[in-house]
């Protein structure tokens, strides 16, 4: 038998290597074996495990041609200060070859507070753009043709309001909702488990999400109604397999909620999209992307009985890992981002955001954003990584790791199922605890020197503080408050009161889809804070479960 002879050879090889390895003890504890062979893929069947690109189980990619017919969308997450400032940055990115917009909102907007709310003080425009009313949204997309651009919005708890505003701006531009393309993140479960910008308790939050699924399937059919996000779970400290597991468990929970609300799997599953992190370990990440595609396809087909191929395809956006950027020697981050981005491309991402070198220090400057965008362009045009579909398919190592990640993730999903699903697991604090344990283990590994971070715990050097960082000063907040006051003075306030009263009534009736009601509110220039305030009153607020 060929395997027998290989086994024997491997044994000898291991023995021969031993001495040399002992000279390099810090490499002994590595997670993976030093060499992978066909023995690691025993029983591996190409047709069932991989198939061709664009073919079930989509391990090799969701489209047949991948980057041979078009590159991924180079989508740079941006937004800061006011709608006026952000609009400038978007138009700059489009002019420089960015192919999709990605809107970052400030925290008050994400958590449903207006700029004049006491809770918003100090936070206005800091981590993204501040949006109070439709007026701001009109300015944000000024001179940007919404029928041409695809827009991703990182918005969750208040997603319904921002989506409604986007639809309303399109109306004003004369673009029908049916022509709109883009994504809202709309993934509340990971807010509870990892990201922290929740507003309402679980039940009403899940209702808002299924309301959006239902509304969009009829009215905004090209819109990705959710971006089920592993990104923040990883940022909070999870491992690669946990990122896949907890995210797909969230996905299962959304599907079950939609099914329970009476929808049919193939009516909405094709609009579910994902959002992954691209972390430091390049090949592990490639395996992670591949494993997640296969896992999702199998779950959709076998567990939910999806018939439509589109429902089974895990399409995803990727962002390079913000938490892996270092404040020390920030130029090194350019290299980290390039490697992470390369992993995303080899893993078959549909769109990509590359972080800027200075983001461990502040929001990125225009110059550093440009380098980050150029990084993607270099990978696309110069590196050759985008020339072949799934270039690492068939690598013993990558296939073995793809299998391993799928298996570990599946074990977690099974455990979560036994607990009663992702919602229960989050309410119990299980998922949070698993993530925190991994985060703590990582930190301790860095502090003990077991894990090396260049410039942080090895190869440190004296540095001067970085100059020329982007600063959002307090004037943005003042400007925003004035603008809001002006809108409030000029709008038809009787109409506002009327729409808000309708919303309150609708919110109290679980059988009503809130999307059309919210749309009426934003058209009347009700502010985000007013709308969320009404919902807060009816729904209450989520109280976190913290286990440390």
């Amino acid at each position: 038998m060929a395997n027998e002879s290989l086994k024997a050879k491997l044994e000898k090889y291991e023995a021969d290597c031993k001495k040399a390895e002992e000279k390099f003890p810090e490499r002994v504890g590595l997670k993976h074996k030093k060499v992978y062979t066909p023995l690691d893929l025993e029983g591996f069947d190409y047709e069932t495990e991989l198939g061709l690109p664009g073919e079930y189980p989509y391990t090799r990619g969701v489209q047949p041609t991948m980057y041979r017919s078009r590159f991924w969308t180079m989508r740079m997450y941006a937004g800061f200060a006011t709608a006026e400032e952000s609009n400038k940055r978007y138009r700059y990115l489009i002019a420089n070859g960015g192919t999709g917009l990605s809107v970052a909102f400030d925290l008050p907007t994400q958590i449903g507070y207006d700029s004049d709310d006491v809770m918003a003080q100090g936070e206005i425009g800091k981590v993204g753009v501040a949006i109070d009313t439709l007026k701001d949204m009109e300015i944000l997309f000024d001179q940007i043709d919404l029928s041409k651009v695809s827009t991703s919005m990182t918005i969750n708890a208040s997603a319904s309001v921002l989506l409604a505003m986007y639809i309303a701006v399109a109306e004003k531009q004369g673009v029908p909702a049916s022509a709109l393309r883009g994504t809202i993140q709309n993934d509340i479960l990971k807010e509870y488990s990892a990201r922290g910008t929740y507003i309402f308790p679980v039940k009403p939050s899940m209702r808002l999400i299924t309301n959006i699924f239902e509304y969009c399937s009829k009215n905004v059919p090209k819109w990705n109604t959710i971006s089920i996000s592993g990104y923040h779970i990883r940022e909070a400290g999870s491992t690669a397999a946990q990122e896949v597991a907890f995210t797909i468990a969230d996905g299962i929970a959304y599907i079950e909620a939609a099914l329970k609300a009476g929808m049919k799997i193939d009516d909405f599953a094709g609009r579910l999209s994902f959002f992954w992190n691209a972390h430091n370990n390049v090949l592990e990440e490639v395996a992670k992307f591949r494993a997640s595609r296969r896992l999702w396809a199998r779950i959709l087909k076998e567990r939910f009985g999806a018939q439509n191929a589109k429902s089974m395809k895990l399409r995803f956006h990727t962002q390079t890992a913000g938490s892996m950027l270092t404040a020390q020697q920030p130029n090194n981050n350019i290299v980290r981002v390039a490697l992470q981005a390369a992993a995303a491309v080899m893993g078959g991402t549909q769109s990509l955001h590359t972080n800027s070198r200075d983001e461990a220090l502040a929001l990125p400057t225009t110059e550093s954003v440009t380098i980050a965008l150029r990084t993607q362009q270099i990978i696309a045009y110069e590196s050759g990584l985008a020339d072949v579909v799934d270039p690492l398919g068939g690598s013993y190592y990558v296939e073995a790791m793809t299998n391993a990640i799928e298996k570990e993730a599946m074990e977690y999903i099974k455990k979560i199922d036994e607990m009663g699903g992702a919602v229960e697991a989050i309410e119990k604090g299980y998922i949070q605890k698993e993530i925190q344990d991994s985060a703590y283990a990582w930190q301790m590994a860095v502090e003990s020197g077991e894990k090396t971070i260049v410039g942080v715990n090895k190869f440190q050097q004296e540095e001067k503080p970085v100059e020329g960082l982007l600063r959002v000063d307090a004037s943005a907040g003042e400007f925003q408050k004035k603008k809001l006051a002006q809108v409030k003075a000029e709008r038809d306030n009787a109409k506002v009161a009327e729409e808000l009263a309708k919303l309150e009534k609708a919110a109290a009736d679980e059988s009503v889809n809130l999307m059309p009601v919210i749309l009426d509110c934003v058209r009347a220039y009700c502010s985000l804070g007013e709308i969320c305030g009404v919902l807060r009153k009816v729904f209450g607020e989520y109280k976190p479960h913290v286990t440390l």
Partner: protein
Amino acid sequence: MEFSMKDFWNGSRRALARAITIVENEQDGYEEIMKEIYHHTGRAQVIGVTGAPGAGKSTLSDNLVKFYRKMGKTVGVCAIDPTSPFSGGAILGDRIRMNDLTLDQGVYIRSMGTRGSLGGLSRKTADAVKLMDAWGLDVIFIETVGVGQSEVDIVKNADTTLVVLVPGLGDDIQAIKAGILEIGDVFTINKCDRDGADRLNVEIEMMLDLGEAQDWRPPIERTIANEGKGIEDVVNGLNEHRKYLEESGLLEERRRERVRTEMAEMIHDRISRHVMQEITETGKFADYVERVYERQTDPYTVVDSIVGNIFK
């Protein structure tokens, strides 16, 4: 900050907070503080809240506090979390569920670690409760995870104990094992919209039937704490128990018993410290250990002689 009893009696929260720190750490002067306040204690209604981890105790307490506030009472909360036996540190996270109460000047919340000091734990809690009582809080909650004997002891400082259970997942079994069912004066099945609430109800009833028949039959309430449902029923149960304690004379009996245990503990503690100090400072203890280890003598003889010498 310098601590002064004058500030304490003038209602300074800062002074109450500092007094608890001093007493908890047994810093200089702590006994003087306790001596001064002792006469002013015994006025507050002290309620223990316990249950398995994840039963929703903090959320329930949060709602109960709000309810008592609406009735015009001032409220104290003593929230206890376990101290790590390895490091001696602790993460005290109960405030998270009570953030709404932080700014209410009629509420005082204090987080405490179990600290695992020999037998002193329940007394530390008792002292903190006494300080809150003397300072003038009307109702005081002692909230603790019901997983072990020490927690059960802490709760014994309460006049009325509320046991929180949740349906499913065998939490009920754990509770029975931990012995907290025996100490419940009022029960609540929290998260009662879940499957298994009826079964759990039956199980508690059966447990209660097993015990000796008593005048007080603990009521079993139902709550969904994070939606604020069923809180009033629990409050009624707690108040009825209070009334029962007063009318039956059991309150006096329980409190007399508590004084008895407390004093016995203090005597035990004081003597043991005295003896240990005596023999460690003189280096005798190390000698004794060595001699016993070498089998030259035995611990029984040694202890007889040590204790005998000191209490001649």
